[in-house]
Structures are given as C-alpha cells and as structure tokens.
C-alpha cells in the first residue's frame, strides 16, 4: 500500500507543483498590475504639477529662485495625502542638488537612486516599486527649448496597495488550498484503484512464475502475464527459494 501511496503522491505532487507555479505567477502579475494602476493614478497629479512648473519656466521664472514652486509642492501633498514627499532636483548636478522639496524628508541615497534610475532609462517618466513601503516616480522637467533642467521626484506611500495585496494573497492561498485538497481527494482514490489493478496483474504474473494458476479474469491481454506465461510455457518455472 505504501508503494501505491508513493506513486499516487508523485502524481498529486506534480499537480500541486502546477497549481503553486500558477498561483505564484498570478500573484506577482497582479502585484505588477496593481502597482501600475496605483502609479498611473499618481502620474495624473504629477503631470499636472509638471505642467505648472514648466509653465512657470516658460514665463521666465528660474527654478532655483521661484518660491511659488514650494507652495505648489506643498499644495499637491495636502491634496493627495498618499504622496509622502515631493522634490524638484537639478538634473545637471551629479549629486542631485535639491531646488525645492516638500513633505517627509527623503534620504540623499533614495534621491540619487531615483535620479540615476531615471537617467539610465532615458524616458520622460521612471517608476520604481521595488521598495516595499513606498514607490518612486520621476518626471523630467523641460524648459521651453525642450532641454531637461530638473527632475520632479515623488515618493508615494504604498500601504493601501500593500493591504490590497494582502487581501489578494489571502484569497489566492485559500483558492490554492481548496483546489489542492479537492484534486487530492478526487485524484488519489482513483489512482490508488488503478494502481491496485496493476498490483493484481503483478500478482497474477508472480503466480504464473511460481507455477500456480493466476486468480484473474478478463478479456484483455496483459503484457506482464504474457511474459510470465511465455516463460512458463518454455518449461522454466520459477519457484521461490524456500519451496525448493
């Protein structure tokens, strides 16, 4: 019985493996999708802010001395509490010199990482959700000539998304467990029944080898029994050692 259980457990194990792989991948794809949706919601605010900053540049107001920008950043944070901090960073300076910032203090390392990531990808917007507690979004600020003069860095709280992820994970785990259990309860007994049939064939073959009459009936041929019969008919009958 132990052998049959082992064989059935391999088949059930493969099914578990299939479901696990599928569940893990679906979860990560959902996480990516959720972060994308979350980020695109913030990008609406960021784009509006970017347009306002670029408009002030077009009016001839330099970034470093335009105190109105600080008020704009603060107003955005007030309106959208998800945004933890906003920074307007000089693109030309290597260390990411901050023109204006608002909200919680962002570490210099985080700022540099965001600026470096944005520069490496070379696109208008860069998004990074690798940190579990918050995500970064970086937008290029361009002067009227189209030159990038600053980066608008948003650090956004990820707690709401994380709560949704926990909910998704719990449900996914529940479905996975339910299906694993259902598959096992359905599959294992039928498999064991099928393996018992194989056992009967092997028993019959063993009986033929011992020179006994097998206790089987059926209209189908058995490869194993045929082999044993061929041996028996050839005049060589195997006897267990203790019956010699």
């Amino acid at each position, binding site marked *: 019985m132990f*052998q049959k259980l082992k064989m059935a457990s391999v088949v059930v194990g493969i099914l578990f493996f299939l479901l696990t792989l*599928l*569940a893990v*991948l679906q979860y990560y794809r959902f996480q990516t999708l959720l972060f994308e949706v979350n980020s695109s919601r913030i990008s609406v605010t960021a784009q509006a802010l970017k347009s306002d900053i670029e408009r002030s540049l077009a009016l001839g107001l330099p970034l470093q001395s335009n105190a109105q920008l600080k008020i704009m950043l603060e107003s955005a944070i007030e309106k959208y509490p998800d945004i933890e901090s906003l920074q307007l960073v000089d693109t030309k300076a290597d260390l990411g010199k901050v023109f204006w910032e608002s909200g919680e203090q962002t570490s210099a390392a985080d700022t540099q990482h965001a600026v470096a990531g944005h520069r490496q990808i070379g696109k208008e917007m860069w998004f990074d959700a690798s940190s579990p507690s918050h995500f970064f979004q970086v937008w290029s600020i361009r002067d009227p000539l189209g030159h990038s003069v600053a980066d608008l860095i948003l650090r956004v709280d990820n707690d709401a998304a994380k709560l949704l992820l926990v909910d*998704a994970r719990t449900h*996914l785990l529940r479905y996975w467990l339910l299906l694993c259990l259902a598959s096992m309860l359905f599959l294992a007994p039928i498999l064991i029944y099928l393996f018992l049939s194989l056992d009967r064939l092997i028993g019959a073959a063993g009986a033929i080898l011992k020179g006994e009459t097998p206790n089987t009936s059926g209209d*189908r041929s058995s490869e194993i029994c045929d*082999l044993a019969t061929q041996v028996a008919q050839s005049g060589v009958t195997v006897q267990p050692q203790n019956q010699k």
Partner: protein
Amino acid sequence: MNVQTTQPLRRSVESLLARKSYILFLVCSVCAVALLTWLTLSHFEKILLPQVLSKSNVIASSVRSTVEDAVKLGIPYDSLVGMEDYLADTLEENPEIAYIKVQQDGAREYAKLRASYSLDHPEDVVLQQIEAKDNAPRVVVAVRASYIQEKLQVILGDAFVVSIVAMIAGLEIALFFMVRWLMRPIDTWRAMIRGIERGELERDLHQSEYGPFSELLRLSNAKIAALRESFAQSSVAKQATLAWYQPQARDVRTALFLFVFSEELLRSFFTLYIKEMVDTSSRMSAELAISAPIMAYMLVAGVGTLFGGSLVERLGLRRAFGLSVLISTVSLCGLAVAHSVFELVLWRSVSAFGYAVATIACQVYIARTAFNEQGNMRALSIFVAAVTAACICGAPVGAVIADMLGKPVALLFAALMALMSWLFFRKIVMPAVPATDTLKQGASGISGFGALLKNGNILLSMVCGVLPGKLMMAGMLFYITPLLLQKYELSQASIGQFFILYYVLLALGNALISRLNPGLHAKRRLVVAGALLSGAGGLLMVWFNTPLALAGVILCFGLGQSMLLTPLMTVLLDIVSREMPGVPSSRALSLARAFERVGGILGAVLAALLSASLGYRDATAILGLIVLILGLGTVQLLRSPVKRAVIHA
C-alpha cells in the same frame, strides 16, 4: 523459444491503465488550472476596479481644477480655447477612459469621446462624476468597463503559458519516477527472463529495485541464484559479476534536462543583464558590448563541441560530466556577481565550455547505450526531447525569477539547477565502452572538413541551410528579441514567453515530421520552404512595429526551422552517402555543428552592427532578408538526384 519482450500485439491492460492514469491526470490538471485562474481573476477584478475608478476621480478633479484656474484668470467658461485638444490629450494618456465631459448648468458642454465608443451604450462604461461648485464645472468621466478585463487577459495568457511549462516540467519529474519505479525494474525483469531462457545466469541484481515490480524481481533473482548454486555443484561455476540491468538512454534524461534547463534559464534576460552592465561600466559601443558575451559563448561552445570529445574520452563520462557541472556552476555564480562586461565575457566563455563538455558527455552516454541503428535513433530522440523540454521551460521560468527576484538570483538559481543535474548523473549506471566507440569513429576536431566542403551540395546545405538558421537564432531571437521587447515596455516575464513560441513550434514540427516521415524529395521541399520561411517572417517588421509583429517573426522562424532542421540532416546524410561514400556520416554532422556555431557568432555580430546603425526593428527586418536570400540557395538542392534507397530512411 524466444521471449517477445518488445511490442505487444494489441492494446494491453497495462497500456490501458497508463492511458487511464494519464487522461485522469490531464483532466484533473486542466480543471484545477482553469478553476484557479477563473477564481483568482474574478477576485483581482474586484480589487482593481475601485483603483481604476479612483484614478478616474483624480483625472476628473484635475480637469476641473484646470478649468477652474482658467475661469479664475478671467476667461469666460463658454470661450475656453483649446479644450478639445486638452480633453483629447487626457483621453490619449488614459486608455481606460471612454469619454470625458465638462458641463456647467445653462452653459456650453465640452466633451471628447474615444473613437470606438458610442454614448448609446451606457452599459459599456462606469461613470464617475464630480459635481459643479462655484466656478468649477461638473466633470463626468466614463471608464471603459472592459479595461480591467483587457489587463487581466495578460494574466490569462500567462496562466496558459505557465500551465504548459509546468506540465512539461511535471512530465520530466513523472518520467524520473516512472523510470525508477516502472521502466527500470521491468527492463531488469525482462533481462532476467531472457537470461533464464538463454541460460545466461552469471548476472545479479547489483542494487535493489524499487516499485511494484520488485516482488517479481526478487522471485526471479532468487531462482537464478539457486540455479547458479546448483551449477556450481555440478560444473564450473560462473561468478555473478554483471548486473541484469543494462543502462538505457533515458537514465541520463533528468540530468540532461536539468543541465540544459540551467543554461536556458538565462535565455530571456541575459541580454538585458549585459545591457545593464554596459550602461554603468563599459566604454565600447553598447550594441557591440551586448553581443560580446553572446559571441564568446558561441565561439567557445563551438570549439568545445569540436574538441570536447577527446576530453570526455580521457576523463570518462562521470568525471567529464562532473567537471562540466563544476565549471558551469562556478561560472553561473561568477555571472551573478559580475560587475563588468569583461567579467561577463569571461564567465560566459567558461560556462560555454562546461555546456559543450556536458552535452557531449550525455551524447556519448546515449550513444553507448544503443546497440543498433534503431536503438541509436530512439536514444537520440530522448536526447532531443530532454533538450527541447528544457528549452521550453527554461526561458519563461528564468524570466519570471528574474522579474520577481532579480537577475543575479535567477543566475544563482541556474547554478543550483546545474549542481542538481550532478546529483542525478552521479547515481546512474555507466554503460560499458564498446569495442568500436562511436566517439572514435566520429573523430573529434576538424579533420576531413575540407574534403566535405569541396562538394557543392554539402557546401550549399551548410551555407544556405544550417548557417542561416543559427544566424537568425543568435541574432534575432537571443540578441534582438529581449532588447526590442524591453523597448516595447514589456515585462521580463512577458519577454520570457516569447521564446516559448519558437521552442514549442520546433518541438511540434519535429514530432509531426518524425511521425509522417515523408520521402526524401518531400524532405528537400520542406528544407527549401523552411529556409525561406525562417527569414521571410523578419520582413513583417518592415510594415509593423509591435510586439505582435515580433511574435509573428518568431512564429515564422520556429515554423521554418521545424520544417528544415530534421529533413536537412536526412538530406545531408543522403548527399554524403551518395556523393562521398568514403566519408563517415558523423563527419558531416560535425561539420553541421561547426557551421551552426559560425552562424551563431555571425548572427550576434550582425545583430550588434545592424542594431547600432539602424535600430532593433530594422535590424530584425534585415536579418530576415539575409536569411531569406541565403535560403534561396537551397532551391538548388531540389535539382540534385535522389537516392531511392534512402527515401524512407
């Protein structure tokens, strides 16, 4: 009387049992996968919809404050200029919105509707509205009801691909246990029955067998031992020195699968990994720097394939495979911690050598287990099946790991897989070295290539049949595909799934051609059609610049190669046996391997040069054109006479 141990005449109870178990597992798996996908996607939709609606609310607020600011500046609401363009831009930037309306009581309405939508079908949208207040107008944003489903369709596609990959990987696991518990014991039992029949009793069970057949083995072995003892009393006794079980090609399958799998894991993300290094550390042209490790890999693997045979011969199979596992594991770890392109080139070259030696070791093992031509073909099909399964599973699984845990972790996982392949290899029984070793017959190195290349038809098969395929594979599939898909902003996991298109088509095509086994002339036609189709797909990129078009290129390439690869080898061997009867066929096959490597190196170089000057899209089209032009050369093969004797070889 001879014992019939091979094919049953009619469907037996055993095959019926196997069929029932297989169908049961398949039905259960499909139902479980479908249910899990349906349940989770339904739940994901419930979570995502409020998020999308919340975004549309932010959009509505943003539009309202923009209009409010304009009104505050003194512009009358009815005379706002550029509202059409502003709303059109908002629609373009937010694909989830069907239409947007800005309204004020008793005043003009500004509205923009997506082209494919109509206001007559309110059931197609979910409305979000912000009411008018003081100077601020009312804003209505209609979110497309199908937007979430469209997004979730990507996950549905993923589920399909993952199910295929997991089923194939599961099949490999099942095969391992089937061999251990069923095939190996029954083969041993058959060998015992044959031994009793022939009176060859000087064999024994050297290790205990597992599985349901162990009882039959125990009974048979006990009888044989008793017979041997009775012989010992009456005549000259023979020592039971040999094992009943003779090694089979399938014994090496799991080890080979894991080793090739470890290498294929890198396929979808390695180019992007090099690109990351180039940006931070290298001074050479980015495109050339990206191609450098690929070229080094092809070169070293090519040289390793040519000369690795002698190393396998000298060290023995077990040590050679162990050495290659060690080399591969160390090099994959080295790749994971590399910081520069130079280090990547170095470690990639080392891993290429390990890969070449390991695959040769497996090929030699398989060749030594075959006792005749039919057995050799069957053994070779096991090799091809294991490699194909590893290729199908490797790229998507590697992509998912790289996406979730990072590329260095994926490389370390690959190293772990290489190491695991050793655990499976070290336990298998080594086959005896035959008196005329196929390896010696094949002769390593490049001797005899010159004579082969003087034959026009062989040269044509190589340059127009073998080389273009590998050129397209290294250039388009391995080099350009990840970079172009990244440019299309596809995730790493999605990039991995593009590779599966090629390998699945290749596997299906090969299986179909092997089953149909067309005549030699039909195979020549297939070679021509396949050579042309392999390149023709590349031209899709002239007209389209989408991931779907690239998928089309890969599909054409996969279909073309599946039509070409197996028939080309038959055609090649026919030419050799007909026009150069003195040359062993293994030489022609070695020459084909060498051309494959040359094609691979050329592909990487061409892809790098073309990408640097024209961009990835045009580079794909030009590579396709080159392959198409080279493929035209195979038309000449149709004119060569056909050797009737080998039509159904």
